[in-house]
């Protein structure tokens, strides 16, 4: 066998790589760049996100994300089904915190139809939205830690999340995709037993967050892997369309619960955590702090919960109660009309946005007066957040790409719609 000396190694590598029939000529194979496909099936991309990376050794020069692997055609389907039938579909948008999407959609349709849910229903919606925020942040922190290498935090986060999912089970009937809100209220009431159990859960929850933070904040590997990685400045963050915890980690104190208050958030006392560094560590800190703030809000909501009914009594727009449908005539007719022909809101359009755990979720509904919308556009936060990835990974190493994607926390179900 021919001995390989230092002089003829390079040409031999080139030869072997190109094969016999090729019309590419390279001067030095080891000085060129490489295109790497972090494909849709990958343990570290959160869902089916395809990243095409152009690498120079281990440094990323450019990145092109490709979406569409989970495009289910939500907007086209919404044009063919009534407003009430679309509620289960909104669950599957940001599928880590389904009740939050339900609340967002119900608020948008109620704004269009011109009805306001009773106060108790609004408090219950706030309660669910904050529990959903806790679910989402637990998974986000857990997944970020798992991607970086700390597997225990993921399992602890999921353990706490299971307790929250038990509450969803009792309140909404399903542990995961809840479809709990209705146009005009919520589907069923919350008993005082459940609320007492939620308070017990919150009381032991604060220590669990402290435990998780103790594991991560003092861990040199975690901190060094995330500090200074993926920095985005304040102006760039607003320009590129960031909203939610990602924006607050860059120094912008913007939260839709304070800027355009909805439900009863203007009566709740909570802080908005803001960090100015704009790197991955700051995004993690914002999420951990928001967990504590959500626990505070839940305590206040349960304290102030008013008594009353949970569905509005407006027969042309809101489904009547089941007990009355089975016994009275008008309610039966209204139920039939609403389920088959839909609530018919007035002609017009509305854009309503709420503060989802990932950012700003907005529904833009155009109605022509019929039972189904003429157009429904879902402004999903993850779509805008993923747009920033090419900007953030420029100049970083491949392993930083994983940390950056984890800290941005995209969910492909809503990015691809």
């Amino acid at each position, binding site marked *: 066998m021919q001995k390989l000396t230092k002089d003829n190694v390079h040409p031999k590598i080139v030869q072997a790589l190109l094969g016999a029939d090729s019309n590419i000529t390279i001067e030095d194979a080891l000085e060129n760049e490489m295109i790497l496909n972090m494909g849709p099936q990958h343990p570290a991309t959160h869902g*089916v996100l395809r990243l095409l990376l152009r690498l120079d050794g281990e440094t990323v020069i450019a990145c092109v994300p490709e979406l569409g692997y989970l495009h289910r*055609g939500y907007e*086209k389907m919404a044009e063919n089904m009534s407003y009430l039938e679309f509620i289960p579909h909104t669950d599957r948008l940001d599928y880590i915190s389904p009740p939050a999407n339900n609340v967002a959609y119900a608020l948008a349709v109620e704004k269009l139809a011109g009805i306001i849910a009773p106060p108790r229903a609004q408090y219950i919606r706030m309660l669910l939205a904050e529990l959903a925020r806790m679910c989402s942040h637990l998974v986000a922190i857990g997944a970020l830690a798992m991607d970086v290498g700390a597997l225990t935090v993921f399992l602890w986060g999921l353990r706490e999340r299971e307790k929250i999912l038990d509450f969803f089970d009792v309140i909404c009937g399903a542990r995961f995709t809840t479809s709990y809100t209705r146009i005009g209220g919520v589907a069923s009431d919350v008993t005082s037993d459940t609320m007492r159990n939620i308070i017990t859960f919150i009381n032991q929850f604060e220590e669990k967050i402290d435990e998780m933070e103790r594991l991560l904040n003092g861990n040199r590997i975690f901190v060094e892997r995330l500090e200074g990685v993926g920095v985005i400045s304040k102006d760039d963050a607003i320009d590129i369309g960031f909203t939610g915890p990602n924006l607050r980690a860059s120094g912008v104190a913007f939260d839709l619960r304070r800027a355009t208050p909805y439900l009863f958030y203007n009566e709740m006392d909570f802080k908005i955590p803001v960090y100015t560094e704009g790197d991955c560590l700051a995004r993690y800190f914002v999420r951990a702090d928001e967990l504590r703030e959500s626990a505070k809000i839940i305590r206040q909501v349960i304290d102030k919960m008013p008594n009353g009914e949970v569905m509005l009594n407006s027969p042309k727009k809101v489904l009547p109660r089941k007990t009355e449908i089975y016994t009275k005539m008008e309610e039966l007719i209204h139920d039939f009309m609403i389920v088959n022909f839909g609530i018919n809101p007035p002609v017009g359009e509305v854009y309503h946005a709420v503060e989802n755990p990932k950012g700003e979720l907005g529904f833009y509904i155009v109605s022509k007066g019929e039972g189904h919308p003429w157009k429904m556009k879902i402004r999903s936060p993850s779509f805008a957040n993923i747009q920033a990835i090419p900007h953030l990974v420029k100049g970083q190493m491949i392993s930083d790409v994983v940390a950056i994607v984890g800290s941005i926390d995209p969910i492909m179900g809503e990015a691809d719609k």
Partner: protein
Amino acid sequence: MGLESKLTNDGFFTTTIDALASWARENSVWPMPMGISCCAIEMMAVGDPKYDIARFGSEVMRFTPRQCDLMIVAGTVTYKMAHVVKKIFDQMPEPKWVIAMGACTSSGGMYRSYNVVQGIDQFLPVDVYAAGCPPRPENLLNALMQIQEKIGKTRVKDFPDAQQSGFDTKPTDLSLSKN
């Protein structure tokens, strides 16, 4: 596989070796989580401390197809993603099984639209369908137990030698009527 197939042509050794091989296979099914959307979260929940899947032998959820026997397709499969799923399935070595988790993979689910494949059995051979949207973790564990039962009924000579068939991944007929 060569020695086993010579030993299990007929005779006393057949049932013993078969039982041993299928006992080993069914108690260490390593799943390949093809987690696409919401069902993937329930699959993560099956791995968490409450509904432990490790006690069924599926301790490692390897994300590389070369080391797995069971592919759990969890989530809506769109036309663009179908090519990826098929590619990964082709890379798994025999013997392999598929669980279609959730309504979206079984029949398109609640998405009757232009971009969703109405059921993955249009391009993959499915062994067990788990119903639900998403199926509760206990439901997925039930599906896993049914796969274990199915493996328990297989015989060693059902799986052709990989070298003979090349990369022909036509699924072997594991129907019960052959037994």
